[in-house]
């Protein structure tokens, strides 16, 4: 717990610096100033003209065309990506990905197959380390962190192809999600110290509480692998929620669900957001779900953001229509 607090504090000071830079007014000045002193040092060291260097500097704006729900406008965004990119060999799988998700926003990430949506999730959760760019999680920089560290900082996800712990029970799956919420070391576990019993009671109570959100408490003792498909998807969301996230990433939560299950899921996502006050970023191909609950939408194609906006804006965007349906024939 101490480590986490320390990490957070460290990251916050880092992020503060970054944010100061990011404010449009101060940005140019700061950058120029920073450059200036750096240049001055360089000039002093090498003797080249300071003026000559400055001419060559091309200033570019940091992306500032973010939209977030009005209620979140004055809060630190839950998630910010700046110029995020990753290369696989020579392929730019994701390039210049910029996104801001408000503190309690439900955001959608859509795009045709192979657009790089899941790669973005893998970047956010550090399954891949980004080649370029910054990810700020609640204002904290996550550079060089491992998957388990960023999870401790508050990012949780579900998977496109369900990844539960199939041989364990439903309750144990949630308990594993609670891993960093309840503490009990190896020794107290082996010797069944009083700490162990307290921790186990806490694990039990919290996991049932979380399962209750989806009405799954009565299935607590079932083996996770034997659950029906829809229940497995729900359990994955519960497990992700158990890590006490600030951002919940859902990778195709409605895949393989029928319309009535999908509409239940939509209600549940909104319920989760309201109850836990967290941000949700979801990848989904079911447009009824995306257009129904997402407040902001980002469209990705070939690793690049091609459109951003509210559902209405995105639906009207010609580039989005082109990406999904192809170029319209002029004569038709």
């Amino acid at each position, binding site marked *: 717990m101490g480590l986490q607090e320390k990490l957070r504090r460290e990251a916050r000071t880092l992020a503060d610096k970054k944010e100061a830079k990011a404010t449009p007014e101060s940005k140019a000045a700061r950058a120029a100033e920073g450059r200036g002193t750096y240049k001055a040092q360089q000039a002093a060291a090498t003797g080249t003209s300071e003026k000559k260097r400055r001419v060559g500097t091309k200033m570019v704006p940091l992306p500032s065309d973010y939209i977030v729900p009005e209620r979140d406008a004055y809060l630190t965004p839950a998630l910010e990506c700046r110029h995020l990119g990753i290369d696989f060999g020579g392929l730019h799988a994701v390039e210049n990905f910029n996104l801001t998700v408000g503190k309690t926003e439900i955001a959608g990430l859509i795009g045709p197959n192979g657009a790089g949506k899941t790669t973005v999730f893998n970047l956010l*959760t550090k*399954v891949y380390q980004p080649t370029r760019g910054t990810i700020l999680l609640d204002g904290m920089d996550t550079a060089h962190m*491992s*998957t*388990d*560290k960023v*999870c*401790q900082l508050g990012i*949780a*996800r579900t*998977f496109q192809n369900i*990844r*539960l*712990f*199939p*041989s*364990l029970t439903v309750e*144990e799956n949630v*308990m*594993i*999600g609670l*891993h*960093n919420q*309840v*503490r*009990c*070391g*190896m020794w*107290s*576990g*082996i*010797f*069944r110290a009083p700490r*162990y019993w307290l*921790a*186990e009671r806490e*694990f039990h109570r919290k996991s049932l509480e979380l399962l209750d959100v989806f009405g799954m408490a009565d299935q607590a*003792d079932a083996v996770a692998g034997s659950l029906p498909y829809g229940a497995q998807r729900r359990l994955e969301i519960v*497990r*992700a929620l*158990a*890590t006490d996230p600030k951002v919940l990433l859902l990778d195709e939560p409605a895949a393989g669900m029928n319309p009535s299950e999908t509409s239940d899921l939509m209600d549940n996502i909104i319920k989760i957001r309201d109850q836990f006050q967290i941000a949700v970023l979801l990848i989904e191909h079911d447009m009824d779900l995306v257009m129904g609950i997402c407040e902001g939408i980002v469209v990705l194609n070939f690793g690049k953001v091609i459109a951003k906006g509210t559902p209405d804006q995105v639906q009207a965007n010609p580039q989005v229509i082109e990406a999904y349906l192809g170029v319209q024939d002029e004569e038709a």
Partner: protein
Amino acid sequence: MIERIKKMGRASKSDLITYALVAAAFIIVQLLLMNGVITSSLRGQLVPICVYIVMAMSLNLVVGISGELSLGHAGFMSIGAFAGVVAASALTGFIGAPIPRLLASMLIGGILAGAAGFLIGIPVMRLQGDYLAIVTLAFGEIIKNILNNLYVGIDGAGIHISFTSVGALAMDGGKVIINGPQGAVDIEKLSTFAIGFALVVFALAVILNLVRSRSGRAIMAVRDNRIAAESVGINTTKYRMMAFVVSAFLAGMAGALYAMNYSSIVPKKFDFNTSILVLVFVVLGGMGNIRGSIISATVLTILPEALRPIADYRMLLYAIVLIAVMLVSNSTHLRMLIDSLKARLRRDPDDDGPAGEAPEGGENVG
């Protein structure tokens, strides 16, 4: 009491059955010993049976519960064995009573084996799957070869260690404890069946308590799905290492007990074949099934002894039993038959303890 048992979860009930089974086995063996039914050759096997049970359970922690195929388990056993022998000699002056001295030696053997497990774990835990298996095999052989060249003696000045020859020990009287490839000689026979049984119970408690705790769930999560485990904030390396080190520690304790059951012991005893033998116990008893490991280690250690009368054919029969058990435990038809029998037995809803006769394969922990 019965009310409490009824209220317990499935897992705790299964654990209770395992403890009961071990306790019952101990009582039965004690009764048989008192009546002199057990032959002397079988009596000599009692401590090795306990040792192999602990070996199988500890390897099961790595192979079945942590999900890493380790082929160098005998290496940790040998570290425990030789460290234990040296410790027992060195402690002669301090602890006179044999049982505390044996326990202290076992603890030292276990700690050294655990430390070796940690050191080996640093490179090994960077690997997965087949690569991990092969590297553990290599480390097992390295340990054996180091012990083959280890000379340890003790005299008034303390412990002397050399890697070249007995002469290089520069001993002033005293006695040589470990003599290179000839191994440890003149070992004081401290091991008893009671201590062996105590070690089994201790190892069983350590493993079951670990598995039912937060750390154990993390270990199983890493086994079931590494990526998902990482995504819920589990440091996978830490928990794989935890299983590996605890397993090495228990193997070291078992090794110390094993060594002190004989008057001499050679490093060659702890080679690849021993690692595989223990792995056979684990696979036969069922991956992740602790009770199964206990049963299979017992049966497969007694079997060659029990078959001694048919001398020439005994290893053949041993092999056939192995094949038969593997086939039977993996047959779907038979599994279905057993399941339907169980379902019929379970008409009483409280009676869901799976009978502990046939070691069954599968992922269940018990």
